[in-house]
């Protein structure tokens, strides 16, 4: 048996992949993250509102999800209800963050691990998606417009009209990347020289958030974090590893389900679900935007000062959990569990995480691709 160690970069940070191989076949893979930024410590003793500025900085590509999870955790702690209008606006900006994430991941992270491909169209698309977020939230990346009690903005119908037309335009443009009936030339081109059925995971799926059109199939109270050999913590649900993310949360869609029946939980199904999800998010947002009542309040001021709470959402890469303990308006404890921790836990040979299972028994030449198809966010792990 031979063990090779490789630093995988360009995954919003870096990770170490140790492959145990026999004749080029991966028998086992160890996944390690070695960076730590201490964000939870940084939050301690600060006013809880500061978390709405600090937490988006967990990540440059999915920081908005951290903002929404923060606001939800504080609202849960302080027993605050937000208006339907504020809820819809958050759905729009979070949904759009997922979309810009997927398109950047597909063309900037995944494609280059296989072949060269023009990535400027992805940047162009993501830039325009970011512009719609900015119309509501002020800017992208790193806004703080979602605060406990609602949102800071006070839109007029001029912005609503602009946002809606922009959503239609972007939905239309997305059809060239993947159509509503699941056709994608770029996806098929990616798989010209790669088998579609490799990289099967654990075939166990978890959805904890119920934002957008997703419905959860579990309760975050069964989540347990455990020490791993590297700096990240493993995450288990009822003592087992589960796959989170677009495949997990779209299995009830007929088209995704038909691909799943054919290719199981392979790289192809995982990537298909991620690209197809964009269409479903566009459809959902276009439906929700019409429900906005412009005269409804944007913000209701919280009154409580002490409590514990949690916020769970479906972020670009899967279920994201924020837990907070507030005492006299100050943060006493903060804990963040990110989707990459679920998918890339570092288990053992008998009890591997989804990504480890996907790498096992595959040819080493596909390791980078299989690894990246989970859309890893190393920087989120090293919060």
């Amino acid at each position, binding site marked *: 048996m031979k063990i090779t160690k490789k630093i995988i970069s360009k995954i919003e940070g870096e990770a170490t992949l140790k492959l145990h191989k026999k004749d080029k076949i991966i028998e086992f893979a160890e996944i390690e993250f070695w960076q730590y930024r201490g964000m939870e410590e940084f939050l301690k003793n600060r006013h809880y509102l500061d978390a*709405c500025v600090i937490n988006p900085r967990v990540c*440059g590509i999915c920081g908005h999800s951290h903002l929404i999870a923060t606001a939800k955790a504080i609202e849960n702690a302080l027993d605050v209800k937000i208006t339907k209008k504020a809820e819809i606006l958050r759905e729009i900006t979070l949904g759009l963050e997922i979309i810009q994430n997927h398109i950047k991941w597909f063309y900037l992270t995944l494609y280059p691990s296989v072949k060269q491909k023009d990535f400027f169209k992805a940047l162009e698309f*993501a830039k325009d998606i970011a512009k719609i977020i900015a*119309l509501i939230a002020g800017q992208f990346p790193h*806004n*703080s417009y979602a605060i406990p009690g609602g949102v800071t903005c006070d839109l007029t119908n001029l912005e609503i009209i602009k946002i809606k037309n922009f959503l239609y335009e972007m939905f239309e443009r997305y059809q060239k990347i993947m159509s509503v009936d699941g056709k994608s030339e770029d996806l098929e081109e990616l798989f010209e020289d790669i088998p579609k059925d490799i990289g099967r995971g654990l075939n166990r799926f978890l959805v904890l958030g119920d934002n957008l059109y997703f419905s959860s199939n579990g309760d975050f109270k069964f989540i347990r974090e455990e020490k791993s050999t590297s700096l990240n913590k493993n995450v288990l649900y009822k003592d087992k590893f589960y796959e989170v993310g677009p495949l997990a949360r779209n299995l009830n869609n007929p088209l995704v389900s038909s691909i799943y029946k054919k290719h199981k939980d392979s790289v192809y199904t995982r990537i298909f679900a991620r690209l197809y999800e964009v269409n479903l998010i566009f459809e959902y947002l276009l439906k929700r935007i019409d429900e906005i009542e412009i005269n409804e309040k944007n*913000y209701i001021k919280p009154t409580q000062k002490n409590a514990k709470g949690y916020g769970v959402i479906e972020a670009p890469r899967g279920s994201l959990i924020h837990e907070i303990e507030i005492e006299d308006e100050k943060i006493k404890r903060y804990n963040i569990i990110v989707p990459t921790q679920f998918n890339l836990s570092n288990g053992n040979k008998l009890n591997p995480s989804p990504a480890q299972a996907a790498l096992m028994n595959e040819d080493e030449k596909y390791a980078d691709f299989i690894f990246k198809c989970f859309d890893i966010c190393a920087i989120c792990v090293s919060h």
Partner: protein
Amino acid sequence: MHSKPKVLWIDAVSCYGCSHSFYNYPQIKEILNKIDLIYHPLLPTKEFEIKSSDILIIEGAIKSNFLRLGFDLIDLIAKLIKLSRKVILIGTCSVYGGMFGEGILFNKEDKGKFYKCKDKIISIPGCPPHPEWIAYAIEMVLNDKKILLDSENRPKEIYSYTSHMGCVRNEYFEWKVDAKNFGEKEGCLFYEQGCQGPYTHSSCNKILWNEVNSKPRAGTPCFGCTEKTFPRKDLFKTETFMGIPANIPLGVSKRAYLTLAGVAKSLTNERLNKRLIDEDN
């Protein structure tokens, strides 16, 4: 054929927000086509090697015992700076330390580990910096143009402005009408919500974010993210002293500010004291 200038973009302790901000620059393709991008932490490039560069771009703060690409981060940065002709520090982390550690040029208020390299450094702070600022710095260096820098090596063409300039809530500031709440069009965020606009060096409200908006325009206070003090504590609160803001807008004496504020408050602007869009008449 003339070879393209070599640009090496390295990530220190960061969140990659600076890179993702730069991705929003509408003509990013034109810039990338002019350069030979020998390494970037996210964009497709060749494998990383310690190499000389015409422009070194550093994103993120420095911290001891932190590994980057298998190297000790601070050693790696020292080598790369030495091998570069010009250095552009992008982001508040990289200039001052920001959220994640020490800056390259400064450590918050103090001189930083690489202060001695000041002559070849350009500071582009911001959390994140505006994509146009990053593009500006790259273009100016590529074209060998002289950049007027202030004492912290920030280009004056960007950082002579305050983020207050161009804010749509300016009239409320003039007449001292404070925002009663979040989520409302009316009122200035300087008095209650912690807005740092009048003393934050940045052109956010002049050139706008994503070409359409800014935080104060979306009802969020400016957090002073381009400054060495970012992120200060109590980001959504205005520090006051005897009921008046403890920090006075840049360039004004406390006495002058109080006189002007007193006069403005005594003369009510009725239009600004009611809802901007009145449903009744």
